[in-house]
């Protein structure tokens, strides 16, 4: 099985600072990590490889230092890594990012599965994965918490707020994964050493079959007006009485009032 994993290098902090003038992310001075959900995506890919054989290739679009993120993926067990990097890609919004990544994947040519994280912890849009699938014209399943592959049929559990749905799809397929799908493995010592010595190829605009107008800032129709944290949709209720007994009594009262029990 040929598996591709899209990984993004992100700043290692929950609080990404935003330039108030340009409304873009300020990356300086913040240590970089592999987007945590993308590690889950890689782990899912590695588990499928362990089970069914094949090859796992990680790809990232980003500045040259994103090679570090790719090395970490190689240390975890990915077979190959490709960095897609060019000044022309600078200022890409999700549309331009996914366009560029889709062109990269077309150039790679063969693939059965493409994995993405649920979302990036800095941009947070969760758009890049689905958009890649659209550019490539393949099916996609997002928010996946469990995967089984049987021949060319993929059966997954898709996570919803209040439960999960079971969905089936045919290869080739793009899947975005949630955190609960697995616990990413540690890199091994050998993997770390191998990754350190690996030559990571860098593909530029010239290597891809792309329309320059659709790249970078030029290809990014998104206008950022304001960035804010949306209010939480469903606020939980905490019942905390003096004893557990009292708390349970209140809970039972509430549940029966709501005709749940």
């Amino acid at each position, binding site marked *: 099985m040929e598996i591709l994993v899209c990984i993004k290098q992100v700043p290692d902090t929950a609080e990404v600072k935003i330039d108030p003038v340009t409304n873009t992310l300020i990356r300086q001075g913040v240590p970089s990590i592999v987007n945590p959900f993308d590690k889950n995506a890689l782990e899912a890919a590695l588990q499928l490889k362990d089970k069914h054989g094949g090859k796992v290739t990680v790809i990232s679009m980003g500045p040259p230092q994103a090679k570090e993120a790719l*090395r970490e993926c190689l240390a975890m067990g990915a077979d190959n890594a490709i960095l897609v990097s060019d000044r022309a890609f600078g200022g890409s919004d999700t549309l331009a990012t996914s366009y560029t990544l889709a062109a990269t994947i077309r150039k790679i040519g063969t693939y059965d599965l493409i994995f993405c994280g649920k979302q990036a912890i800095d941009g947070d849009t969760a758009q890049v994965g689905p958009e890649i699938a659209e550019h490539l014209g393949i099916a996609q399943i997002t928010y996946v918490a469990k995967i089984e592959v049987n021949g060319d049929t993929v059966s997954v559990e898709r996570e919803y707020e209040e439960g999960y749905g079971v969905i089936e799809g045919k290869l080739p397929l793009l899947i975005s994964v949630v955190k609960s799908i697995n616990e990413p493995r*540690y*890199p*091994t*010592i*050998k993997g770390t050493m191998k990754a350190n010595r690996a030559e990571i190829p860098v593909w530029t605009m010239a290597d891809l079959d792309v329309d320059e107008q659709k790249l970078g800032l030029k290809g990014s129709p998104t206008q950022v007006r304001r960035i804010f944290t949306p209010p939480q949709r469903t606020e939980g209720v905490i019942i905390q009485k003096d004893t557990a007994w009292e708390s349970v009594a209140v809970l039972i009262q509430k549940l029966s009032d709501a005709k749940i029990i």
Partner: protein
Amino acid sequence: MNFELTKEQEDIRSMIRDFAEKSVAPTAAERDEKEYFPREIFDQMGELGILGLPYPEEYGGAGSDFLSYAMAVEEISRVCASTGIGLSVHVSLCSWPIFHYGTEEQKQKFLRPLAEGTKLGAFGLTEPNAGTDASAATTTAVKDGDHYILNGAKIFNTNGGEAEIEVIFASTDKAAGLKGMSAFIVEKGTPGLSFGKKEVKMGIRSSVQREVFMKDCRIPAANLLGKEGQGFKIAMTALDGGRIGVAAQSLGIAQGALEQAIKYSKERVQFGKPISSNQAIAFKIADMAAKVEGARLLVYRAAYHKSHHLPYSKEAAMAKLVASDAAMSVTTDAVQIFGGYGYTREYPVERMMRDAKITQIYEGTNEVQRMVISGAVLR
């Protein structure tokens, strides 16, 4: 002079720190309390390549070096000194003599599973009446055709009873004294090999030490390590390397205690300000930090010497002496900085202080380190 780590050494270190914090630290206090030996952590270290870190890939190792290995022991010991010594004994005292003195066949048969981490190693030299004075050992090995028959008892055997492979020392020629000592590879499960009580200890309580009994224990003659009579040399050179492991363990303990003390002293408020703003505390922390860094340089230098095939006996003894004394004093100061809370099991510094003490005792007491050092410098 170059004090920089290579990118590879840095990456290995950060990978091991991540592992130590996520998979070793969370259970350290509980394992100490319950005297629980965590085979599962050793299995995981095996899978990650940590148990064979400095040995070549052709023998199942990761193909790194002894400095990376010392940093691995340091990082693990920073959160759990018990796991740190288990790792050190496995790599330095059991695997190394097989790597250095073993035949190709012995390396494939015994070093490979040790380095791959599917088997755990131990080292049996000390006996009830032979501690510092190894010449008083009474365990014997008598050749009988294709076998040796071992009789005797060892004590304080780290990883004993858990380990599948033991390097054990026995006399093949009583009259020759130390020159009659030989080293053997003994596998768990060999008839006549059994294990006695587990030591109940002050510190490193999640590490295990057992008595080892050999009663007409027949092992293949092919398990003789090196030559007959070479045992004492094998033991002493293995201990030279082991001391780098113990020194790295000490360094890790001291580093862990220093970090705890820095954090606590900035958070604990008395008289309306953090206790760290008292010079008495700040200077104590300065001394602790300086001792840790001093020890670190000696430990890394000894490991560097070993990696580069330079003499390291004196260097290892100095590293072990200075680092273990640093561990004892830094952990004691850390408890002092924590005050009454430091004396309770709510915080890890009392465990670190209990763990530190053994580093001044095993793999040659610090008196022995001074003998080695004075012997070298007064020559």
